[in-house]
């Protein structure tokens, strides 16, 4: 069974540029999560989807971050414009609905210069 797929794995951009991350969850997982992981810290939830509905986006900085999950499968997380402080690893995870066990992708390491 394929795991959670994320791309790209690494991205280097200059500040004020836009960037997008893509996630393909495990087949059949209705719940999808985007996390931010700063160096030396645990993951922090940015947004959680149930199918195509964002049910928890309270921690998403909506002035520059946006996300979508149009058909309830793949998801894209966008930052526009990026700031130096956005340098971090962005993790995607998925789970079956109503189940707390999450399966994580390898993450995208973003460096903003």
């Amino acid at each position: 069974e394929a795991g959670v797929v994320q791309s790209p794995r690494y991205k280097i951009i200059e500040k004020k540029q836009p960037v997008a991350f893509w996630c393909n969850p495990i087949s059949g997982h209705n719940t999808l999560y985007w996390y931010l992981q700063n160096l030396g810290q645990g993951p922090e939830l940015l947004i959680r989807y149930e199918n195509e509905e964002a049910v928890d986006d309270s921690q998403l900085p909506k002035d520059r971050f946006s996300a979508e999950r149009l058909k309830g499968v793949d998801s894209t997380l966008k930052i526009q414009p990026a700031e130096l402080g956005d340098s971090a690893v962005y993790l995607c995870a998925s789970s079956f609905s109503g189940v707390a066990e999450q399966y994580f992708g390898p993450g995208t390491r973003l460096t903003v210069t």
Partner: protein
Amino acid sequence: AQSVTQPDIHITVSEGASLELRCNYSYGATPYLFWYVQSPGQGLQLLLKYFSGDTLVQGIKGFEAEFKRSQSSFNLRKPSVHWSDAAEYFCAVGPFTNAGKSTFGDGTTLTVKP
């Protein structure tokens, strides 16, 4: 508010020695507790989980954890560490369903000496 504290930022053990990683949590209801491992450049992999029943739970890779409600702890243990166990370990707490969200600790980095 729920929270997780992993008091040890970094632990070094010799290969073959026993290991215990500490985790303390704060949660207003019955917690669902997890331990994840993260190797460099990889995502988090679930080692084990606990919600109810026997307070000593077994996980993958020879790990086990013990839930102690009176101490609000969920410590991870392994009797004999292998060099491949070197990684970062995260404890997390959350609701039984994903109607809420899980909170992760800041992790403990394990170094294994030959």
